[in-house]
């Protein structure tokens, strides 16, 4: 072998030996946390930001909790439920994580929740999946969601739309569980206060051509409620403007989130004035939120791939990881007896998040804060979301009684 190659091999061997010893030495002082986000496929950009949020929560504690070192094992999915379950199973059964944080998208969340029932001794905490059914239909005793879900995020938006004078709206949303929840959250309030939704257009996820949907927009609606995410939102906004559309928009939580406002292309000035419902708002002036944003910007400057302001995904993953670590702190790292004490601590926890307090209901679903936001332009010409209203203590029943509550679907709720 050449001398340089010999040196390389020896260094490698030495490093391996050292790592083995180091690993052996610290084996018993580690708590393993599995982290799952979508790093491929349609939500790849959101998944990357979610992981940044989770990393921030770990870094806040200096990488240690209750005297043990935190080891985060990352896995990736691509918004497909079967891939998410496979990745989770590997983290839980092969890598032997103690706690699982994830997944990102709504359908994955339901599948992971079903899987969690087969692993009663591991605690599963949500990533950012926001479908209602995850905690409302057949909830799992060891699946915890410290973030509010899609319908909760839209609380307050119905009234804001009516305040702006939108008495008749058309809904354009993607055809899967998360948008159903969002539309339900909006329409429950909007319909109750007298608004009318004559047309609902459900478009396939990833469908690119909105020309036909745009052609179907009736003349007599006042605004469009657009619950699309990622590339679909960008396409729709672009094609709508190109087609000469000028109706105001009401956005879902991921329609005007950071990754859309900052997509690579011309700034869509037509977005200014769009109201939306979301769990975060960049311009919220709470002290904790400002500190969170500053930490994010310091750790992930735009040049290194971060967004100008943390996205919804970063925030939600941060909250869930923080809950996981705070729970560990409260039980002093005691994960014995099937993690019973840990789970009780989680269920009773009052979590302080950058936007307010969060506690869990009987289905281990968060009761938290939602914002009604409006898109505005700052002094630099960048688009951001300013706060119109902050609603606290939003629970999953959206203030209704259990008997009259129906999960959002394509036909529920209805008020033509």
């Amino acid at each position: 072998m050449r001398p340089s190659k010999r040196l390389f091999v020896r260094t490698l061997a030495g490093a391996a030996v050292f790592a083995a010893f180091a690993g052996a030495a610290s084996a018993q002082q580690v708590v393993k946390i599995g982290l799952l986000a979508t790093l491929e496929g349609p939500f790849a950009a959101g998944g990357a930001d979610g992981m940044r949020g989770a990393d921030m929560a770990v870094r806040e504690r200096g990488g240690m909790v209750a005297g043990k070192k935190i080891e985060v094992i990352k896995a990736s999915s691509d918004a497909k439920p079967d891939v998410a379950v496979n990745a989770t199973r590997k983290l839980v059964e092969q890598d032997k994580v103690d706690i699982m944080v994830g997944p990102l998208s709504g359908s994955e969340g339901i599948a992971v929740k079903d899987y969690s029932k087969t692993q009663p001794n591991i605690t599963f905490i949500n990533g950012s999946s926001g479908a209602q059914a995850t905690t409302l239909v057949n909830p799992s005793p060891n699946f915890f969601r410290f973030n509010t879900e899609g319908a909760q995020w839209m609380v307050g938006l119905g009234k804001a739309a009516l305040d702006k004078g939108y008495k008749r709206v058309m809904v354009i949303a993607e055809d899967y569980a998360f948008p159903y929840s969002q539309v339900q959250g909006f329409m429950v309030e909007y319909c109750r206060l007298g608004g009318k939704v004559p047309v609902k257009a459900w478009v396939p996820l990833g469908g690119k051509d909105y020309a036909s949907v745009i052609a179907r927009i009736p003349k007599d609606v006042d605004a469009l409620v657009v619950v699309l995410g990622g590339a679909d939102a960008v396409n729709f906004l672009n094609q709508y403007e190109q087609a000469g559309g000028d109706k105001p928009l009401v956005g879902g939580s991921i329609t005007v989130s950071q990754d859309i406002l900052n997509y690579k292309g011309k700034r869509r000035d037509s977005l200014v004035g769009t109201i939306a419902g979301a769990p975060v708002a960049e311009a919220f002036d709470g002290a904790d939120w400002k500190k969170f944003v500053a930490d994010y910007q310091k750790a992930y400057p735009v040049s290194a791939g971060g967004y100008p302001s943390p996205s919804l995904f970063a925030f939600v993953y941060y909250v869930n990881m923080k809950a996981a670590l705070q729970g560990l702190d409260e039980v002093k790292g005691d994960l014995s007896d099937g993690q019973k004490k840990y789970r009780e601590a989680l269920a009773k926890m009052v979590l302080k998040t950058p936007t307010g307090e969060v506690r869990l209901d009987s289905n281990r679903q968060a009761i938290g804060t939602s914002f009604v936001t409006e898109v505005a332009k700052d002094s630099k010409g960048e688009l951001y979301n300013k706060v119109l209203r902050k609603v606290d203590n939003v629970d999953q029943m959206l203030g209704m009684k259990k008997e009259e509550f129906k999960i959002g679907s394509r036909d529920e709720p209805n008020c033509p």
Partner: protein
Amino acid sequence: MSRFWKWFWGIAIGGPIAVFVVWALASNERLFLVTLLNGLTLASLYFIVAAGFTLVFGLMRNVNLAHGSLYILGGYLGYVVAEQTGFWLVALAAGFLVAAIVGLAMQVSIFRFMQGEDLRQTMVTIGLSIVIADLLLWTFGGQVHQLSPPAWLDGPLRGIPVINAYSKYRLALLPLGIAIGVLLWLFLNRTRVGMLIRAGVDDRGMLSASGVNVNLVFAITFAIGAGLAGFGGVIGAVELSMVPGEDVRLLLASLVVVIVGGMGSVVGAAIGAAILGVAETFGLAYAPTYSVVFTFVILVLVLAFRPRGILGRPA
């Protein structure tokens, strides 16, 4: 087919379509006309991309499943060039050239050595498509890249009777598609190289036996086919935005267009694109949940009765 059967099928297929057209015009003529325009403009994009695909297949019997990757390669690079120079036309040229060069490289370095092994070539294109798509995902990330139309095509064209307003850019796609079609036809039928290509499509062995440098002809054809895909990519980057996953969509559209229209026939690609574009947009407008079923039914009908496509020639 006997005259009776031709009449029978003409009425069986044309009848319901005529009834539908009359009903749609009567109930909401604006929607119908807008949808028709949408369909034809979408068909233009499909035609541009599928023409390259069918050219490569017709001459070299190479089912280039990396065609979609060449599409997004052209799209992303066109975006970069447009950002740097600010000119959409320069981006168009760049998209065409880059894809053509990559296609040329593929042909010269890989496919040339696999002459005759059609299935193996197809496998290689599948592998290349996965690799190229992932490299582009790595470089550009999962974010949406939306190319803006040039200023003179930006915004709606107002004042059209019945429709009122329609996107200028989208409207411009129609003459662009026709222009590309005419150019291709002229190239294939009025130039020497085009004559060689047509001869090769008919009988590859004979072409080689007449002393023509077949490898050169193949290389040129592949470059043009790939360049068309890249060109289509820049166009699509404005209309449909660039996102990972577009490659599969456009590849499938090309497949359906070529299956329906006929392998190796550019006119067939035009017909197939028109059918697919119109069917897709009408489906999305009038019955969005089942739009793809229409495409499927058309595909199945064509396969069942004319397996070579409408204008296809035997292998």
